[in-house]
């Protein structure tokens, strides 16, 4: 076994439930590489919802709370509130995070609460058998858009930026080195970090949308369509060409929510003491 796997995987839970050719295993590896380099496995508190990507943290030997569809972020907020020193990481998917859990994403980003949300975007509801997702491209035929998808896809990164996230990046499963670097940056970032990963699902997206269930074909599709760029101008240009720009989008410093909470708690407690009562 890969030494990282030997060190960090929850072995009684193996084999992975991921299909052959899935991108989730590549994400497990890139993430564990970052965790190993930072030496923070004991501080991790990870949450997930429902879907293929929600199983990613379960295979890591760490504290994991896998909750209901779309609800990973509120669970993460509870864990963070309970002990702010935790490194809280959420694994979600495009359906889990942008459709059923979309509202939670907006509000967690707005608070700039210190956590990392990793959203694995395979452009489909894969675990339920290939239905249209909020990230599915226009015209795509899926099990629930048999005549083609009429709806425009949602851009999770733009939403995260608009809502107030203070670190936003998008990479893909072929950018494993960049992913590890981005995970490390996010885990050290004081605030709400959002990482979208364009991932392959040969079994659903590949077969129904792209036209081939071959993992090689699907990875090649990512290589051809995900274009690393720097700067917003190029970003728009790539998008206008119908491709997917990837790269680091934003990293800024803003007051972090839990720190602000603790600061306010100290202040109101001091004031209450000054007023001569504890109420």
């Amino acid at each position, binding site marked *: 076994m890969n030494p990282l796997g030997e060190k960090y995987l929850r072995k009684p839970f193996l084999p992975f439930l991921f299909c052959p050719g899935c991108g989730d295993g590549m994400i497990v590896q890139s993430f564990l590489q970052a965790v190993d380099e930072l030496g923070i496995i004991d501080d991790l508190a990870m949450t997930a919802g429902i879907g293929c990507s929600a199983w990613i943290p379960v295979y890591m030997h760490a504290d994991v709370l896998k909750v209901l569809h779309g609800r990973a972020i509120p*669970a993460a907020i*509870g864990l963070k509130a309970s*002990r702010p020193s935790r490194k809280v990481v959420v694994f979600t998917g495009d359906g889990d995070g942008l459709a059923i859990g979309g509202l939670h994403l907006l509000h967690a980003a707005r608070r700039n609460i210190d956590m990392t949300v990793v959203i694995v975007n395979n452009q489909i509801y894969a675990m339920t058998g290939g239905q249209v997702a909020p990230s599915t491209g226009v015209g795509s035929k899926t099990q629930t858009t048999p005549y083609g998808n009429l709806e425009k896809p949602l851009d999770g990164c733009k939403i995260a930026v608009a809502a107030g996230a203070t670190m936003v990046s998008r990479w893909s499963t072929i950018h494993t080195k960049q992913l590890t670097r981005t995970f490390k940056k996010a885990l050290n970032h004081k605030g709400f970090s959002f990482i979208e990963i364009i991932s392959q699902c040969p079994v659903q997206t590949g077969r129904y949308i792209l036209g081939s269930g071959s993992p090689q074909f699907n990875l090649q599709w990512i290589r051809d369509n995900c274009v690393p760029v720097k700067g917003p101008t190029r970003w728009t240009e790539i998008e206008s060409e119908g491709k997917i720009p990837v790269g680091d989008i934003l990293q800024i410093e803003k007051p972090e929510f839990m720190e602000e909470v603790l600061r306010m708690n100290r202040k109101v407690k001091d004031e209450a003491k000054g007023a001569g009562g504890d109420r």
Partner: protein
Amino acid sequence: MKQGHIKVMMGNEACAEAALLAGCRFFAGYPITPATEILEVMSRRLPLVDGLCLQMEDEIAAVVAIVGASWGGTKSMTATSGPGFCLMQEGIGLAVAVEAPCVIVNVQRGGPASGQSTSTAQGDFYQARYGSNGDYSLIVLCPSTAQEMFDQTIKAFNLAERFRTPVIILSDEVVGHIREKVTIPDADDLTFVQRKRPKVPMGEFIPFQADADGVPPMPDFNTGYKIPVISQAKSLNGNRGNAKEADENIRRIVSKIEDHMDEFAEVLTYGDEEAETAFVTFGSVCRAARSAVDMGREKGLALRSVEVKTVWPFPDALVRRALDGVKRIVVAEMNLGMIQREIERVVRDPEIKIELFSKIAGIYPQPQEFLRFLEVKR
């Protein structure tokens, strides 16, 4: 006379006060009439005791956040009313499945849907028990006074910690908003239960292996146990269970509560315990029934009022005992007949008449109406 101090307070305030005393340090909520005061008090008070109160984006987020905080090691609570309680149902099932101790207050109002936001009702009686999907059990307490809002909140936290389960306080608008005398005992005179933590080191710890009482020890996150907690029916090590493991998991989370009901089930009788006519009530309606018993006594009527304080799991044996010797039962409730069905199930004697005195649309039953009901229907 109890020690402690006496305060005049609203039922909802008494609930918040008790939660703070019980050690609640995380509250997540969403404003909704008639439960909002609990959120308001917690947002004022929690910062003073190093706690945190969050107003979430909706009730789904609120209930899931308290499940997260509970696994984080913090006693947690949320409070809502009907429409919010609907949204919380998936999270209540989650708390059951991941065995997270937490307290959920439902200050009932009229329904269905938005119903009557400022009016009282008891229409969530079955929703409190059966609102989430699948087979499960949980504990539901019903206060009828501001004092009971206080006492039952303490009890709710203790039972949640004892059984690793969500405990629901099924209050209603009358109890939530009534202002009356509440005796707040000194903390030293109260018992506070803490969840069992594992005693064995990580290598020997089996996450969902229960002790003889059906409850597995619960480590806080980030204390070295590296526990996998999934919302699926699970095996003892926390993975998705096969059919046999799932069967055992589901049966255990039900029986850990239902086999130990004698630890917490409570049914009170007010008035003449030998009376042949009994009122059966829960929640705020107990108050009017008590007055009716007193008024009846003045008129020479022998009456008893049976008050079900822990409505779920339904305390069959205690209710049967409290109704021993009755010939006529009047079930009074603010819905179209819910606890009545449980009484019919428990009292299977065709000789005993079970009648429903039902009030809906926010109209609280008056004591004299109880007596008129007895006259008219005789």
